[in-house]
């Protein structure tokens, strides 16, 4: 029985790590702009598919492919900000969010033209048998995803709390006008935040594609769950997205295991709603910050 429970937990951790990585991407743009970037899922897809393109199609070495993938994703994030967000600066926040939806649809279309509708995958980072813990199986790639997620949280934390650039970025979100008055280049900060979150999304895509495969229309599904993870943990809280992601993943898996797999999405989302009813700012969010921000 323990083995079965362990297997359910591992499955939940596998899925949860994916949600956590996506959720983290939402937080960066949110922290800098208060915008919810609903094209975040497409950056994850881009990460996976570009990585496939560089390693399997162009046959470049692994690390070079990673760098090229991240650069391309960053560039696309930059273009997105320059072409769609910047011209509309000063528009309502809600309008901006709608724009990100439009971008996600356009990106999905472009990805479909380039890659078609088939799923893609490549070898895990390290080959070898999956690990056995208490008789339950966990894929090596899941450990990679976990490791990458944890180090990214650490880096994101350092960036927003210990560097000038990161602090300046958070200031932009809280009050753009005041940030401008103290000499912060707000438009540059917004641009950087889009580049960063595109790269973060791409990292996620690179890491999860060997587990779940990647196809052009996986973005919205990833974005919804990642977004849930982010708001459950408290929007803008790096650690929150991760905890939220794992909670949702594990709940889904336990529901599938002990109740029925048909209910897994519903139960996880109902529990998320319940948490938000009792603590609207999310697990790690603070009430006072919520009141200052528009979303």
């Amino acid at each position, binding site marked *: 029985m323990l083995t079965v429970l362990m*297997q359910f937990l591992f499955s939940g951790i596998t899925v949860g790590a994916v949600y956590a990585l996506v959720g983290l991407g939402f937080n960066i743009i949110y922290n800098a702009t208060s915008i919810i970037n609903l094209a975040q899922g497409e950056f994850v897809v881009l990460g996976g598919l570009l990585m496939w393109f560089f390693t399997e199609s162009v046959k470049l070495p692994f690390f070079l492919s990673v760098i090229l993938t991240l650069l391309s994703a960053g560039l696309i994030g930059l273009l997105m900000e320059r072409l769609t967000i910047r011209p509309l600066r000063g528009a309502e926040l809600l309008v901006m969010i709608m724009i990100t939806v439009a971008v996600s649809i356009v990106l999905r279309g472009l990805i479909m033209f380039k890659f*078609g509708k088939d799923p893609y*995958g490549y070898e895990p980072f390290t080959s070898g048998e999956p690990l056995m813990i208490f008789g339950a*199986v966990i894929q090596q790639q899941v450990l990679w995803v976990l490791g990458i997620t944890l180090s990214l949280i650490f880096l994101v934390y350092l960036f927003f709390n210990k560097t000038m650039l990161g602090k300046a970025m958070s200031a932009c979100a809280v009050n753009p006008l005041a940030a401008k008055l103290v000499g912060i280049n707000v438009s540059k900060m917004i641009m950087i935040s889009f580049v960063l979150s595109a790269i973060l999304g791409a990292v996620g895509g690179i890491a*999860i594609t060997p*587990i*779940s*495969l990647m196809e052009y229309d996986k973005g919205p*599904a990833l974005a919804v769950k990642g977004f849930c993870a982010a708001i459950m943990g408290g929007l803008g809280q790096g650690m929150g997205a991760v905890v939220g992601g794992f909670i949702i993943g594990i709940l889904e898996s336990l529901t599938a*295991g002990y109740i029925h797999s048909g209910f897994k999405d519903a139960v996880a989302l109902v529990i998320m709603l319940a948490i938000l009813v009792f603590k609207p700012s999310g697990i790690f969010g603070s009430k006072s910050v919520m009141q200052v921000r528009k979303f």
Partner: protein
Amino acid sequence: MKSKKHGFLKFLAVITVLFCFAAKGYSKEPYKIGAIFSVTGPASFLGEPEKNTALMLMDQINKAGGINGHPLEIIVEDSKSAEADAVLAAKKLLEKDNVLAIVGPSTTGESMALVPVMNNAKTPLVSCAAGYPITNPVNERYWIFKTPQYDVSAVEAIYTHMKKHGITKVGIVTIATGFGDAGRKALLDTAPKFGITIVADERYGAKDSDMTTQLTKIKAAGAQAVINWSVGPGQVVITKNWHDLKLGIPLYQSHGWGSKKNIELAGKAAEGVIAPLGRLVVWDKLPDKHPQKALLKKYESDYKARYKGEPGTFGGHAYDAVMMVVEALKKVGPDKAKIRDYIEKNIKKWPGTGGIFNMSEKDHCGLDMTAFEMVTVKNGDWEILK
């Protein structure tokens, strides 16, 4: 002014005549067939190869001189995988283009939406979707045919194989889409007939990235085999999970498994997976005298040469649908009622990509479980199980 206008009309007339001669000397008017496929939307993995196949056949037939000297014109409409758009497309084809027959749509839902439309218009429809109710009850589906094998036939093929190997307790896992729903129903309904007990009945979402929970549960429930019913990346993910967990029980897939791409993506995890597949994917392993071999070979190589991809089982459904209508047109000419009668009465022992068709008044699909071969994966390639 008047003479000038007449001059222009004359000029137009001359040009038109010239064009008629230029078009390979067709003097007869074209035969128009409508085609409705889910070229975009969630079912586009069906619609795309179907559209490609229909257009390829049209070019091939016209290059070879058309149908009794009449050029063939296939007008393809995109239903966007939606019932309402399929109905609109059918109305446009029937009323504006005056087509003689329609092939498609790609999905069961869209095909069902067209049943009353086609019955009212008294025009034959050859659907490319698999659902049982598309052609049943037959007396209410006078104008409706379909080319894909029934889901039930694929299930029967699997259960027959299981029975032969002494498997009686089975766990099923199905994708939460129309394809999975139909498969799940067929699996549950048919099991008692073969003395098979379903000990676990699990589901998963189309974009899920891990199914170890479902598989663990199935194994814990005492199943002797797992059947997965899905199309898309889910069937690869589940194959990898099955391999990683070392469940020690065989994995059966549905007839949606028949793409080389799945073997590539699953790698060595795919070894030993069993599935009932149409003969399109294993044509090179058929005996030379098999009636389907030559046409499968030609279809696959033509398709690959033109589109740089596999046609897959789904493209084959459109091939069969178009060729049935074309043969009827060749024999009976542009008469909707006669085309219908020809398909019902004369498509017998008719080799297509999906199997050897035997249409009748009682069966507007004409395929049973003999349309499938039980195929396993061995050394990264398909192998027919005897």
